[in-house]
């Protein structure tokens, strides 16, 4: 049952992306409403999967890279609903859908992803809180990356004077610059909270704290440079993409640590 939820939610995100592409090509206005419906359906199915999975593993479903990636994609969609409406970034859903689709496909293709869940002893409140908040922070970084890509696309259109329907549907470049920065800040605050929770967890979270700090530091530097205007919006957009790639790689590193243990 849980697997069906996950596969269907993955298809929802693929459908959301496909529809948005079609809508842009067909010059249909306001494709965001359909995106919203598809994203919401995908999110409900993701939540269903995580709920059933947590019942099976007996704790927050973050026991493998497969589960962490699904939890990350759930966080991305959760934040998309919070942020998308706040900034009225109509195409955020369209850009978010392929990212979430990709993460979930990778998760399902991982070796061991199809194995049944194994019940494990609870790690305790603080380690689980640390893991969960840190991954939600990664979700915010993912959205900052998505907004960064949107910024770069819009900037290219403006510079090259290619004002096609893609351009028409993208939000103003100034709003995208703000969104990149704010999502980065939100992720940074969440990751800080996750690291603090990790300190309360003691030795149980030592490896994840170390990796979280590896992500926390570059984002901290970026935010300082940005707030002091020492770095341009264009560069921060590129770095938002690069930093998220780094954050994703730490998930792989974390898995390697767990496997060696």
């Amino acid at each position, binding site marked *: 049952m849980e697997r069906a939820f996950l596969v269907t939610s993955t298809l929802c995100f693929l459908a959301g992306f496909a529809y948005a592409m079609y809508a842009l090509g067909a*010059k*249909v*206005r*306001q494709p965001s409403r359909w995106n919203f419906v598809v994203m919401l359906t995908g999110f409900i199915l993701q939540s269903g999967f995580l709920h059933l999975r947590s019942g099976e593993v007996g704790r927050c479903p973050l026991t493998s890279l497969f589960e962490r990636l699904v939890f990350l994609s759930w966080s991305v969609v959760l934040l998309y609903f919070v942020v998308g409406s706040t900034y009225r970034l109509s195409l955020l859903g369209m850009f978010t859908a392929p990212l979430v689709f990709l993460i979930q496909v990778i998760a399902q293709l991982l070796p061991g992803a199809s194995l049944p869940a194994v019940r494990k002893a609870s790690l305790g409140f603080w380690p689980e809180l640390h893991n969960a908040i840190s991954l939600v922070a990664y979700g915010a970084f993912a959205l900052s990356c998505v907004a960064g890509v949107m910024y770069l696309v*819009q900037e290219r259109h*403006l*510079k090259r*004077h290619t*004002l096609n*329907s893609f*351009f*028409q549907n*993208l*939000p*103003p*470049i*100034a*709003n995208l*610059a703000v969104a990149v920065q704010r999502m980065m800040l939100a992720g940074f605050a969440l990751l800080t909270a996750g690291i603090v929770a990790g300190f309360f967890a003691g030795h149980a979270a030592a490896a994840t704290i170390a990796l979280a700090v590896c992500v926390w530091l570059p984002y901290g530097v970026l935010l300082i440079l940005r707030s002091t*205007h020492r770095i*341009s*919006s*264009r560069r921060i957009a590129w770095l938002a993409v690069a930093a998220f790639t780094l954050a994703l790689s730490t998930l792989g590193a974390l898995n390697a640590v767990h496997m060696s243990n």
Partner: protein
Amino acid sequence: MEVLYLGLSHKTAPVETRERFAVPDAHLGEFSSLLAQAPGVREAVVISTCNRVEYYAAAEDGAEGLRTVSNFIAEKTGHAPQAPTFLELKSAEGIRHLFRVVSGLESMVIGETEILGQVKKAYQSAQTAGATSRTLNKLFQRAFNVAKEVRTKTSITRGAVSVGSAAVELAEKIFGKLDACNVMVLGAGETAEMTAKALQSRGAKAIFVSNRTYERAVSLAEMLGGRAIHFDQWEREFDAMDILIGSTGAPHAVVTNAKISPLMTRRQDRPLFCIDLAVPRDFEASVNDIEGVYLYDIDALQGIAEQSMQVRRQELVRCEEMIERHVADFSKWLTTPHHGFGGASGMQPEGAK
């Protein structure tokens, strides 16, 4: 019941003719009401804008109804409506014409939306004056729905179709809302003035005008409600500007890469939108290479306007298909046996006149 149309527009009559038949806004309701009371006509709506004067009526006998409308126009304006200046349409043709008008397909600038508001106003005046009943109420309500559908499901209203509106559209794609944007006009050309006005109408915070002839700058600044700056001082004010419009008659570039690059570093990453309306150009082309600067010259803006116009023309077929569906649907309703009097405001039985 038949829907009738008698009217002229920018397509059939020059402005000298249109003004002879124009009806002041304040008299639209009265004209509609008087026409609705004329023999052979049951309901009427009169629309009068700078581009069209149109009489819509509902009558049992189409030919008699059109004669009545024609006589009414002649009596009220002192000029008899004649073909080909005036167009006479009945039933489906009249319905189609109204749907096309409210959708902006008959407008001078295809897809413009102002006409919808004007028709709504005229209809409301007629309705308030008791000149409409079931047929025209239903027709106009349907027309407004058609206009909405056409606007939301096609790109007929999308894109900028003039240099000024293209500049506004780009500015909004860069800054979002323009209420925090300062605009500086270098020179005092007519297109620059229109562009500045377009930006101002979309909420631009302040307009600054700088010209080699200071008096001309003062005059334009006064007209725009802005501030004049001596030409040798515009760079001092540059930091506070978001949009720079070039429209001088200088034979060489006034705004160069070398001049702007160091100034941009002081702007704390605020983007700069440069609009070059001058020929020869006021901005060096390489200004567009500076990070955060977006330069558009007159050709680029005209290209955007033409591109939008082309998109609108391409969308005409889709709009017409939509309209045709509604015309068939409404015509069917009009000819169904249950269609008749009752239920709408202003109705009156046949013998009441």
